[in-house]
């Protein structure tokens, strides 16, 4: 557990980087520091491993003031990942990862096999162990940075915008793998980002900082979205705060109506003015149809041209947000709910989906 006890940081020229910040980062959780630039989130992060020393207040790890330990020793027990990775260009990937074990006295024979394992863990091909950083892509370098921070198995990890310098596709992959890793390892993580979406996706709790080093709000993502403390936070979260909240509602909680199905074997004459959902023998949805769209078609629905579904949503795994998206994309305005086998279980109207917000339940 990391405790900030009224931590302040004031520079000689008068700049206030942190203004009496108090919060607790629970053990085994991901706490995200988010905010505008100059808001102090990185400064706050760096007080934990004493890269910055506060001018007021204390930072405690499991009750002990960080000032009590020698900086170098303190840092060897804390993983540290930064935006540009900061890999050592003169060392191979393997030796980069093994840096802290070497610092702690491990021999090459002990440290290197473990480093190889870590490479696989973070999704790197072990064949690259002998390569140098300049030969790797940005995403690969970031993975090395994470592996390096994990190498000494520290209980705490500090991450400063580790995924910001890569493209969105790579970033999404890295975020997903990061969550998977955390599921296995349960480290206490403090994560800094300027991206509110990333904060909501990754954080168990989010601390919002405002320029001037003030902590404005410290809440779970759902509570943050539901009740921003003030206009600044609301603006920072952005316009689609309401839609984002739906990510936290299970699709299974969305009330469904019976689906207006028509088997694909039916004749076109069976199609009415209103939208019908065409299904196959296994009750899997194939598309939408109504008389206005059929024109002079004849025969069974198997030959007719159907309106595309857009996508469906699974009542087992998806969130209400996916359901709302499906409803918007659907030509009929109705989202198609399917079970884990892919069979239709019902449809949902946009109104019903939004209504599910009234009784939110935690998706995680």
């Amino acid at each position, binding site marked *: 557990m990391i405790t900030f006890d009224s931590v302040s940081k004031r520079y000689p020229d008068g700049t206030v980087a942190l203004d009496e910040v108090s919060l607790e980062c629970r053990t085994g959780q991901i706490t995200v520091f988010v905010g505008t630039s100059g808001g102090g989130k990185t400064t706050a992060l760096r007080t934990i*491993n004493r*890269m910055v020393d506060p001018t007021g207040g204390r930072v405690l790890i499991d009750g002990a003031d960080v000032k009590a330990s020698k*900086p*170098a*020793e*303190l*840092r*060897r*027990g*804390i993983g*540290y990942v*930064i*935006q*540009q*990775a*900061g*890999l*050592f*260009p*003169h*060392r*191979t990937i393997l030796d980069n990862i093994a*840096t*802290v074990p070497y*610092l702690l006295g491990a021999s090459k024979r002990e440290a290197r096999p473990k480093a190889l394992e870590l490479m696989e863990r973070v999704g790197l091909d072990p064949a690259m162990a002998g390569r*140098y*950083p*300049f*030969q790797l892509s940005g995403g690969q370098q970031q993975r090395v*940075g994470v592996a*390096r*921070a994990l190498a000494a198995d520290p209980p705490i990890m*500090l991450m400063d915008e580790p995924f910001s310098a890569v493209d969105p596709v790579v970033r999404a992959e890295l975020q997903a793998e990061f969550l998977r890793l955390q599921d296995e390892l349960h480290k206490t993580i403090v994560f800094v980002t300027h991206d509110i979406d990333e904060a909501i996706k990754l954080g168990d709790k989010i601390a919002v900082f405002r320029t001037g080093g003030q902590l404005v709000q410290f809440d779970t993502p759902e509570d943050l979205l539901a009740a921003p403390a003030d206009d600044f936070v609301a603006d920072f979260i952005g316009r689609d705060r309401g839609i984002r909240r739906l990510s936290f509602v299970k699709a299974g909680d969305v009330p469904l109506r019976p689906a207006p199905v028509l088997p694909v074997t039916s004749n076109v004459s069976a199609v009415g003015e209103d939208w019908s959902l065409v299904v196959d023998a296994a009750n899997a949805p194939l598309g939408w149809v109504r008389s206005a769209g059929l024109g002079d078609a004849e025969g069974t629905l198997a030959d007719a041209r159907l309106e595309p579904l857009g996508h469906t949503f699974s009542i087992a795994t998806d969130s209400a947000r996916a359901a709302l998206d499906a409803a918007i994309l659907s030509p009929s305005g109705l989202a198609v709910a399917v079970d884990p086998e892919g069979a239709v279980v019902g449809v949902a109207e946009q109104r019903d989906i939004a209504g599910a917000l009234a009784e939110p339940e935690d998706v995680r």
Partner: protein
Amino acid sequence: MNNFFNQVQAVADWLSSSAQWHGEDGIPHRLLQHLAYSGISLFFAALIGLSLGLLIGHTGRGGFLVVSLANFARAIPTLGLVVLIFNQVGLVLTPVVIALTALAVPPILLNTFEGLRGVDPDARDAARGMGMTGWAVLWKVEVPIALPLILLGLRTAAVQVVATATIAAYVGFGGLGRYIVDGLARNDYDLVIGGSAVLVVVAIVVQLVFTALRRFIVSPGILGQARRS
């Protein structure tokens, strides 16, 4: 071009005549003297230049002084310095070696300083953040990354001392410069060219030594990075 080939022939003759390989005026002796003056000066210059350069480069303070000093030293005419020393002190070796050393320190100092300053701040930050002490950061991270520039400084200094040692012959010291000075005095241009040829070979060897050093000492990760940029 006939002139050129005649010259090469003359040098070849001079080099192959056995008189050149024995005695006080022989090539081995002069070469040894030259290498001795150069080597000792380079050694001490490296000692001073590297220590100061590492200190100033690691802490980042005093950069302006270093650059100014390097500029100033480059401006000093070696002939003037050597002649002045000889005029004041006579044919005494130590002052001249001190002058050689003094002139060689600035390139080592400047390049070491710039090499350390050029280290990616992210690598330095990551190193501190992982728990390396200042000393460890210097030796395990900064120096290996700065190595190409440090070697460049040493190479420049080596060239400097070899050249200055050549000039020392003018005031009566030994070394390969003697061939040029004596040859000029006696109008024996074969001697002059022969001595110059040997100096060219020395220059090439110095180059090769440092090229080899660069390839074998600098990490492939740094060489490859430089090649890419």
